[in-house]
């Protein structure tokens, strides 16, 4: 509990880190209807693709310097020596980021989805999808950023984004499932299955990666 | 099993209009292999040459 509170407070102070990606997401969602002005009546056609990509990019931005500050000032080294379970710390960090960035973005997804499609049932179904996918993307980009710790976030994104693409495919298919009223829950469980594997493995892998950086 | 599948050399090249696809793929495969073999062989030669140079 102490670690959670500490990470919570640390992130709360770094307004740019959590507010920035949320605002970028907001701007991207505003930019979408502006760029397809001539299609105003058919906005929902491409809306969901833009939504998933916007979530993906926002999560990439959110994790940009997740370990960098701690790495540069030696905090990571200290934590590594002191804390027996480094992976717990990583999980807590990801959870905090998800609470600060993932949940607000999911709420915004619901609002924008409702605003664009005017379909409450559909928008309510989008909410759990964005909640789960944002957590998955966060985990993946955290790993990418751990890999390219002091080499810039582009490199990390480059190597981990291919792993996120299958999730995007599933998200795309789940929209079709919602529209055709078939097997929506199946897709939710598929994403939850992926998440449960990722949630366990990513913190472990990240802790090994950071150890490799510090050695 | 080992019968020539075409009636003439021209037919084998043309392949009922599909020859352009088949032979271009063959050219790409051969070219890629050739480039990589040449590249690595020359790299190895260069390193060996450098290592042989007196310091």
């Amino acid at each position, binding site marked *: 509990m102490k670690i959670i509170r500490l990470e919570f407070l640390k992130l709360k102070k770094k307004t740019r880190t959590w507010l920035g990606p949320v605002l970028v997401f907001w701007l991207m969602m505003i930019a979408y209807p502006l760029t397809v002005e001539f299609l105003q009546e058919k906005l929902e056609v491409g809306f969901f693709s833009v939504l998933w990509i916007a979530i993906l990019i926002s999560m990439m931005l959110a994790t940009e310097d997740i370990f960098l500050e701690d790495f540069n000032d030696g905090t990571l080294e200290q934590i590594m020596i002191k804390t027996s379970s480094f992976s717990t710390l990583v999980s807590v960090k990801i959870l905090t980021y998800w609470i600060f960035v993932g949940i607000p973005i999911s709420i915004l997804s619901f609002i924008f989805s409702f605003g664009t499609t005017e379909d409450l049932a559909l928008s309510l179904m989008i909410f759990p999808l964005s909640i789960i996918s944002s957590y998955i993307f966060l985990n993946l980009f955290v790993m990418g950023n751990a890999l390219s710790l002091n080499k810039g976030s582009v490199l990390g994104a480059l190597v981990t984004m291919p792993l996120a693409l299958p999730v995007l495919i599933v998200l795309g298919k789940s929209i079709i499932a919602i529209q055709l009223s078939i097997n929506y829950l199946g897709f939710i469980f598929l994403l939850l299955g992926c998440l449960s594997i990722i949630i366990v493995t990513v913190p472990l*892998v990240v802790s090994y990666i950071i150890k*490799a950086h510090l*050695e | 099993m080992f019968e020539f599948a075409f009636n003439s050399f021209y037919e084998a090249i043309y392949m*009922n209009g*599909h020859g352009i*696809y088949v032979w271009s*793929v063959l050219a*790409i495969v051969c070219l890629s292999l050739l480039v990589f073999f040449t590249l690595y062989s020359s790299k*190895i030669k260069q390193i060996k040459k450098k*290592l042989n140079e007196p310091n």
Partner: protein
Amino acid sequence: MIKKFIHQFASPKTYLFQVNKFYNYIFFISVFIYISSITWGLLFTPEDFVQGNSFRIIYLHVPASFISQSLYAAMAVSSIVYLVWRVKLAAYLVIAIAPIGAMTTFIALISGSIWGIPTWGTWWQWDARITSTLILFIMYLGLISFHNSFSNYEKADKLLSWLVIVGAVNIPIIKKSVDWWSTLHQSASITLTNKPSIDPSMLYPLIGSIIGFFGLILCLVLLSSKNQILIREKTKSWIKDYV
């Protein structure tokens, strides 16, 4: 016992001498098998009833596609060997395989696209297997650029190995994508469990072309790893004797 075996036979020095001993045999046998299988497949197999002569691209596309995925699996195994047993040679192999994997994936993509024109009427389709292969290609390029961005080789090797292992999740997705998602792409003609859905007169040259291409790619991997060893071990005294 495994550890002892690995350390005995996987020292860069032993490996390099073994490569020099067997390289020519593997190379010439592979060239012979590949050329004869390709000639058999392109000129001596009967025309396909549905696809016509364009089906002959199978002898060039399938080996590349099969090996592009196998090379990633080989990288994953090498990464595990490196991280678990700290075998340097395994780390050299990981980075040696990456460009060759990228090349075979590129061949698979291009040949598939060209094959798609007469067969599907389009050179590209955002179909599951094609997209996954494109992802694999980008991953190979990502791995190469990732490794090159570090000046400290040892750190780069470790991080790259982790990345390869994590990326290995993508391989079963590629394999299963055809069954999971609706696709234009046909299912595999040869599987380990079922009887091949391809006629023997077409099957034998296909197997030959896979073996031949595998041999040639193995030769490339041997050359590339030799190159890596020469770069990374250049300060060792035995390298001077070797050269």
